[in-house]
């Protein structure tokens, strides 16, 4: 049985200062790293002999407009099927420099997950073969999940905002 502390210690031993903010909310090991090391970190976890964290569960992003320098956080959820161990890795990015290397060479499922993150948040994944919008229309010129954009379509004519409490 793998424990969070054991895996955390191994990662600290391997990556030293580049990983940090270790936590386990609701018993899921969470830590953050920098964008230059995310690929090698995921590769290390995937190819580790005992851990075999070989399943990429999810890639998504979160927008924190109130923390300057760390506005966007790309979150990777990974899972080791052989050891029943889950881990969450975060990469904080600045709003002016929104680039992260892609992990498609390691996991084919990252393709559409990264496109969705780009579509909704505008995070650019370097090395992605086909980074374009996937859920919204190609002509859309903003990234809707960012906090500054409203939920409703501002051009609709048939719903009066006053009646809906806005």
């Amino acid at each position: 049985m793998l424990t969070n502390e054991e895996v955390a210690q191994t990662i600290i031993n391997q990556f030293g200062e580049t990983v940090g903010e270790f936590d386990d909310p609701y018993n899921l090991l969470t830590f953050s790293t920098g964008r230059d090391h995310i690929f090698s970190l995921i590769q290390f976890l995937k190819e580790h002999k005992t851990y075999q964290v070989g399943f990429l569960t999810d890639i998504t992003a979160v927008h924190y407009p109130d923390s300057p320098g760390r506005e966007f956080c790309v979150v990777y959820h990974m899972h080791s099927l052989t050891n029943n161990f889950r881990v969450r890795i975060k990469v904080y990015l600045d709003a002016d420099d929104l680039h992260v290397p892609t992990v498609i060479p390691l996991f084919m499922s990252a393709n559409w997950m990264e496109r969705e993150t780009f579509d909704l948040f505008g995070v650019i994944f370097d090395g992605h073969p086909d980074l374009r919008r996937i859920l919204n229309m190609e002509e859309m010129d903003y990234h809707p999940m960012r906090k500054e954009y409203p939920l409703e379509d501002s051009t609709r004519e048939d719903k009066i905002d006053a009646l809906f409490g806005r």
Partner: protein
Amino acid sequence: MASDIKLAEAPPSYDGAGFSATSFDKIIGLARANSLWPLPFATSCCGIEFMSTMASHYDLARFGSERPSFSPRQADMLLVAGTIAKKMGPILKQVYLQMAEPRWVIAIGACASSGGIFDTYSVLQGIDRIIPVDVYVPGCPPRPEQILDGVMQVQELAKNESLRRRNTEEYTKLLNSYSIQ
């Protein structure tokens, strides 16, 4: 046995030996109303309720919709069931344009009628933004009985429609308001 079969009511006519004379639009209306071929344009959850309507429990075929045609050219009524996103709007309009007259449109479900619970940037707030609608069936999703009621309303419309309606100025103006020529 013969009394078990329910036949459609014959319109008032002048009968004789081996013939029955009535007006064109009554006969044609009767024929159209009882053989409406639907085009199921099912996008989401209402599509599953539409499938329930087509299945054996709430059979849609007994209303004349024996052949759900997926080709617009051969369909009489367009059943739009489910949310229509803005990305899907042009496709819906193209399918509507390909249908031959006379054609009727039923908007099944709250999403097709008015956008439903999705008042968002990506959902079209009702298909009557882009195509003229004849019958709205509210519900989320509507029960199959409600969908059948909607089809029966279209049957009423088809039975009582004047033969010239599709060529009138009023109808052309309606289509022009949706920029359909």
